[in-house]
């Protein structure tokens, strides 16, 4: 009985988290301000790392959080500072 309820709940959260990441990808591709696009992509990476935790892959969560939410937005913000913030 308990296994049945917990089983349905985990799959429900997997479905909700992966559907919630689609609007952030659309906003990141469509916005003209490049800094906002980087922040939307970082939010989408956070939702992906939660999805990876639910899929029981703890090694991947450690690498993914350090790389995609830490180092990659830092690198992209440095790039945007040097080349110009607004797309034409």
């Amino acid at each position, binding site marked *: 009985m308990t296994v049945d309820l917990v089983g349905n709940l985990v799959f429900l959260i997997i479905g909700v988290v992966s559907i919630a990441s689609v609007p952030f990808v659309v906003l990141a591709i469509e916005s003209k301000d490049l800094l906002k696009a980087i922040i939307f992509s970082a939010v989408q990476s956070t939702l992906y790392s939660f999805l990876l935790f639910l899929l029981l892959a703890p*090694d991947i969560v*450690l*690498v993914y959080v*350090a790389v995609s939410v*830490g*180092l990659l937005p*830092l*690198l992209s913000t440095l790039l945007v500072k*040097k080349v110009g913030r607004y797309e034409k």
Partner: protein
Amino acid sequence: MRSRDIAFALLILSILLILAVPTFLGALGSLPPENIRSLARSILGLTFNPYNKSLWTASPEAVAAIIWDYRGLDTLYETMVFYTAIIATLMLYREVLGSRDEVRGRGLSLIVKRGTAIALPAIVVVGLSTVLHGMLTPGGGFQGGAIMAVAPVVALIVFSRSIIEESRLTYAHLVALRSLALLGIVLVPLIPIIVTFGNAFIFQNQAKALYSFTYPSTVLDVPMGGLITFLNIFEGIAVFSAFTLAFTILLYSEKVSRKAVEGEDIGF
């Protein structure tokens, strides 16, 4: 609407259809799978099995055992690809490598400096702990190295560039550290062959049926995994120094970086 917008809408739709139709007709098997494949079952059954000591790796973590023992050659070549990619980044700036910066920076305000100075050693300690426990819990060389690499980058932005130039993490030291770590990764699987004069396999972890060289399998009272511990430590050092190198090169001021580009419009 212009024809360009129609073409892009058709592109999105066709990618979706090409991916979705074979999946729901069964190309990936049933979703989610009912049973894992037989190779995974045999790896999980053999990785910490003290009743079958001719095929075991002494580490209770299956992912670290696959990366450094069962598929160790793949990881060795991947480390070499990583090494070459960072060399390619450094080659774009070859006239200005290792030189001092001409613009003196001041860093951020006092509150930010003191707060960061408390948090930075904590980041390095967490990264080291993740590297050293890679054979018991989720962790390992890549994970710990990526966590540790956040610390010098934050220090570079908060304290301005003088902290790198007046410390021991200069360009020459970082390159030497990275090359020594890669040398360590290459030598550790070759030690069985050197020590027993040719009577062992490459990447041999524990004693096999034919040859009987073995790395130690417990340290004090905790399963160690043989060569997995040493390879994790070297890989953590290599990843940490590679990311620090790449970020110090990218964060030069514009006056110094323009020297790497001058002369290209007349052809050299």
